[in-house]
Every structure is written in structure tokens, then in C-alpha cells.
């Protein structure tokens, strides 16, 4: 990977981490509801995956974290406004952090029912194919979401139609409090690709080069009209299911914390000489300042009119 791209993935991952940790404190303070599912541990691979796509390729994201939105440059202040019930958000108070949307940046939303987005991605792929837009539709989901029946229906039909879709499973080993070994019959979710006659690969979520390469290969195949691919990224979940979940059910939390991909990337950036320790520290400070500015921006917005409850239903 080019050094400037690696540095950019690091910057966005760090910004995501800083934003989410600050979000959790805002939730403790009661400024926003504690409904964020932190993506800590998954940011690097989310951002590396999106770096492999064109800037306007549509993305249907998963519920864990905002790395996808930061990757595409969605306004942090707007996302906070969505959560704080203020004007200036992306979804007019309807969807909080779960349904951030910015179609100009290719952020096409999320299903609140986990695994409910697979079916949407199939239709978007059908539209891209029929309209010959050249766009690739990427759907992110978790190991938990992969156990919905929609996974099977969607990957099967996407494969039959050779749709320009890329399916990216972020396997963090936990569906809320249930370990993947208790819920999933195969070790690798990517193995299921065989059942649809499509490529299925497993990549290490601490290795942004591997993620970038896998998604590039899948996106190129999709753009050539050869159909969808399934990529499974093995990642770690560093936080609870939601912002204030103490995750007492996890015996592996300490081990996960020792495998933080952001720390691995930080060390690599320094060892490659892309940044000094001092430069990393000042980047961290810049990210913190950007998040504080976003909070000020959100707080400057008026509280949403309650009448918004009646808007945005029918055209």
C-alpha cells in the first residue's frame, strides 16, 4: 500500500476512535442516547475496505461504529445532531446513529433489523447493473447478521444474477453476548461462498493491506460483471455491544485489548517513519479538536421540531 494511503487510513481510524470514545462520554452525560455500538477494533479494516472502492460506490454499512462514515467524510456534527435530536442531521431525527445517510457520499443507510440490509443490497445491485452505472454495491455485516435467512436468499440471488455486489463480513467473534462458536456451524463464514459458487476469502483485520487487496479484487470482479464476492474480515471487538455495556460475559476482553489493530497500525506508521511519536500525538490532538468542534456545531443547531415526527413517510 502507498504510504500516503496508509497514513490516511490511520488518520481516519484514529478520528473514528476519538469520536466514538467521546460519544460514549456524551452518552454518560446524557447529551445523546447510549445507542452507539462502538466499532473500536474494527475501524482500521472498515476504512481500509472502503479505501478500495470508488468514492461514490454505494455502501450499506453495519451497526458497529462510524468508520464507514468517517471514511467517506460524512459530517461528524451532522451525525451528532442525528443522535441529539437536533436539526442539521442526516436523518431528521428518525434514525439516530443507526440510520446515518449521505447518498452524495455513497452512504446508503442501514437496516435496523440486523441482516436486513442484504436484501436491499441485491436490489441496489440490480439497479446498478440494469442502469449500467458502473457502481459496485458493498454491504457490511457482522458474524451475527450472517445467520439471518436473508444472507442465504440474497447471496444466492446476487450470484445467480451476477450482481455487482461485495459482501463484507466483519467477524468479531461475538453477536452481542453469544460467541460465534455457539451460533455458527462453520469456522469461517467465508466458507459459505462455496454454496453460492462465488469467491470467499478470509482476511486478517489487523492487516489493512490484506483488507484493501481483498476488497479491490472483489470490486474489480464485480465491475467486470462477474458477480458478487464474500470477504470475511477477522476483527476484534474492543468494547461492549452498546456504549455502556460492561460485557461481563466476555472472558476474552483483555486478550482482545492486546490485539487492537489501531495500536498495531500506530506502531507501523512510526516504524515506517511516516510519523514521529510527536506527530502522532499532535494528530491525536487534532482529532480531539475536530470532535470538539463537531460537538459545538451540533449544539449550535436548534432542537428538532416535534412535528418532524410526521415528516418523511410518504413522498
Amino acid at each position, binding site marked *: 500500500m502507498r504510504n500516503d494511503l496508509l497514513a490516511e487510513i490511520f488518520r481516519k481510524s484514529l478520528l473514528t476512535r476519538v469520536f466514538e470514545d467521546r460519544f460514549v462520554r456524551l452518552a454518560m452525560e446524557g447529551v445523546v442516547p447510549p445507542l452507539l455500538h462502538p466499532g473500536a477494533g474494527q475501524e482500521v479494516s472498515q476504512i481500509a475496505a472502503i479505501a478500495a472502492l470508488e468514492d461514490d460506490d454505494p455502501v450499506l454499512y453495519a451497526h458497529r461504529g462510524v468508520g464507514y462514515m468517517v471514511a467517506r467524510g460524512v459530517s461528524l456534527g451532522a451525525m451528532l445532531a442525528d443522535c441529539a435530536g437536533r436539526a442539521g442531521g442526516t436523518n431528521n431525527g428518525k434514525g439516530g446513529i443507526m*440510520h446515518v445517510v449521505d447518498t452524495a457520499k455513497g452512504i*446508503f443507510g442501514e437496516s435496523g433489523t440486523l441482516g436486513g440490509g442484504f436484501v436491499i443490497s441485491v*436490489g441496489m445491485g440490480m439497479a446498478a447493473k440494469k*442502469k449500467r452505472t458502473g457502481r459496485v454495491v458493498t454491504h457490511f455485516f457482522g458474524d451475527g447478521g450472517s445467520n439471518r435467512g436473508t444472507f442465504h436468499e440474497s447471496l444466492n440471488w446476487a450470484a445467480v444474477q451476477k450482481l455487482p455486489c461485495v459482501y463484507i463480513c466483519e467477524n468479531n467473534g461475538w453477536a452481542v453476548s453469544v460467541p460465534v462458536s455457539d451460533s455458527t456451524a462453520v469456522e469461517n463464514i467465508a466458507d459459505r461462498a462455496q454454496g453460492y459458487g462465488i469467491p470467499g476469502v478470509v482476511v486478517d483485520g489487523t492487516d489493512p493491506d490484506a483488507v484493501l487487496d481483498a476488497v479491490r479484487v472483489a470490486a474489480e470482479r464485480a465491475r467486470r460483471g462477474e458477480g458478487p464476492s464474500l470477504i470475511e474480515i477477522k476483527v476484534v471487538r474492543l468494547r461492549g455491544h452498546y456504549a455502556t455495556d460492561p460485557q461481563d460475559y466476555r472472558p476474552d476482553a483483555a486478550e482482545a485489548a492486546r490485539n487492537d489493530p489501531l495500536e498495531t497500525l500506530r506502531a507501523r506508521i512510526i516504524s515506517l517513519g511516516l510519523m514521529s511519536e510527536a506527530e502522532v500525538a499532535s494528530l491525536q490532538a487534532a482529532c480531539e479538536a475536530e470532535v470538539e468542534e463537531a460537538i459545538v456545531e451540533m449544539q449550535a443547531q436548534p432542537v428538532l421540531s416535534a412535528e418532524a415526527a410526521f415528516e418523511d413517510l410518504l413522498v
Partner: protein
Amino acid sequence: MREITYSKALNEALDEALAEDEDVIVYGCDVGRWGGIFNITAGLQAKYGVDRVFDSPISENVLVGAGVGAAVGGLRPVVELQFADFLLTAGDEVFFKAGMWRFMHGGAFKVPLVVRLPSGATGAGPEHSTCPEAYVMHSPGLLCCVPSTPADAKGLLKLAIRSDNPVMFFEHRRLYQTRGPIDDEAPTVPFGQAVVRREGRRATIVAWQLMLNRALKAADILAAEGLEVEVIDPRTLAPFDFETILTSVKKTGACLVVEEGYRRLGVGAEIGARLFEEALPYLDRPFRRLAIPDVPIGSAPALVSRILPSEEEIVATVREMTR
């Protein structure tokens, strides 16, 4: 004026919509090669090609959900579910995705989707017999068509395909072979406009599709006895034209809803509740409902006819109401 069948009217609506707009696609189980298990899409794949009219796997969730995604992506999909009962098989996709994807994303998307839902009891068993439109009427974000005549079947389907909102389109299977006049020059009837199918002053009957036909036959029998009843066809259940019913009830003072859905919390329950809220001073007689008693619909013909409201029951109910 021409006279055509209800199924031909639906086929013409699809044909014309495909011809008018390149973005219209039609898919579902068996709609391509076969032309649909009820023959509604006959000839369309040959005419418009497999890219626009195509078969699908037996995967109701992705059929409806992909319709939402394709609509978001700029197409105008028309999805056939073989039986209206499968509305519930695809519940997440119908109620949350079609009904709420736009809302939950703050109006960022339009969802111009039509799901065609052949309904009605023909002895095919509990999962292939129902008229589940009350679920749609209950849930926000969905439009709901229940055409009763060939003219309305064609007009409402064309309007549904042109609409930028998701439409659940119920076609009654026992009406497919019924015939009726169609005026190709007539303006399209908008959503939310009921029609008075027969005028009368002694009671108001609200019914649609098969039950409308039974209500009209009952009205003939009652007229011979000197009981003139008004029969209203709502045409769409969402939006719902309550005003036309209110106007009629102010005149007649009595209202009966006849429906092929389950009685408990059905469409009739909603109409009755609204009359109670808004028209109590005008009701001289208790509001009445005829519907499927709250049991599943079996397959033996005797079981089906035992629970479907009949002309005789409608006649007896109106007699009793107006006594």
C-alpha cells in the same frame, strides 16, 4: 367501450407500464417463462426481454427487499408474490423496509415499489387463502389497493407503478375471470377515492372485491323487498376515503362492513371505530360487521363457504339491522 376480464386488465396495465418507462421491471416466481401461476404476466417476457421480466428463486424476503433496493437505485420494480398470504413471509421487508426505509433515513430515498398480492379463499389451505389487507392498512408508510373491477384493476395498477410510494396491490383471485367495461379514455381514478356502486337510503354497506360482488347481489334481493341499500367500494384502503362513508351514513343511519379478512381488528373494526368517534349521532342502528370468524381458512369447500360471508348472511344482517 370494451369489456375485458380483471386478469386481462392487470396484464394490460403491466404491459403499458413496461412500454412507457424503461425503469419498470417485473419479477417474481414463475412470472417469466410461465407468465405467472395465474397468467397475469403472460407474454410480457417475450415482449420485453429477460432483463425486464424475469423469474426469481422462492425467496420472498429478497423478492420484496430487492424491490426496495431497486427502487432506491432508481428502478420501478413490480414484484409478484404468488399468494397474498406471503406478505407475512416477507414481513420485515414489507413493513420495515418498504414501509419505513424512507422514513428511517429522513426522507433521503423514494421507494417506488409495487408488490402484487393475489388474495382470496379458493380452498388452497390456511396459508394460500387469506385477504391480509388489514395488516397493510394498520402499518404506516404503505399504500394499499383493493380493486374490484377490471377498470379499477387497470387504472390503480398503472397509478401504483407511477407512484413514488410503496404500494401493496391486492388482486382477488376469484375476480380474475370476471368481466367488466373499460373506458380507455377515462381519467385515472386517484388513490383514496371511494365509489358508490349502488345508491340507497336504508343502510350503507362497505365492501370490496369478492365481498363487494356479494353485497351487490344482496342489495338486489333486498331491493325486491323494498329495502334500498347503498353500497360503497373503497377501492384503496390506504389512503382511505372515510368521507364518502360518512356522507352515506349521515343519510342512511346504518352501516355494515363486509370483508374477507379475519374479523378481530380487521378493516371493519377500524371503520366501526371511526364511525363511533365521528358519526355516533348519525347512527340510528348498531354498526355491524361480517368477516371471517377468527379461525384459519381450511381447504375443503364446505369449510370455506361456512366461514366466508355469503349473500344470504348479508341479506339477513341488513334485514335485522333495519327492522
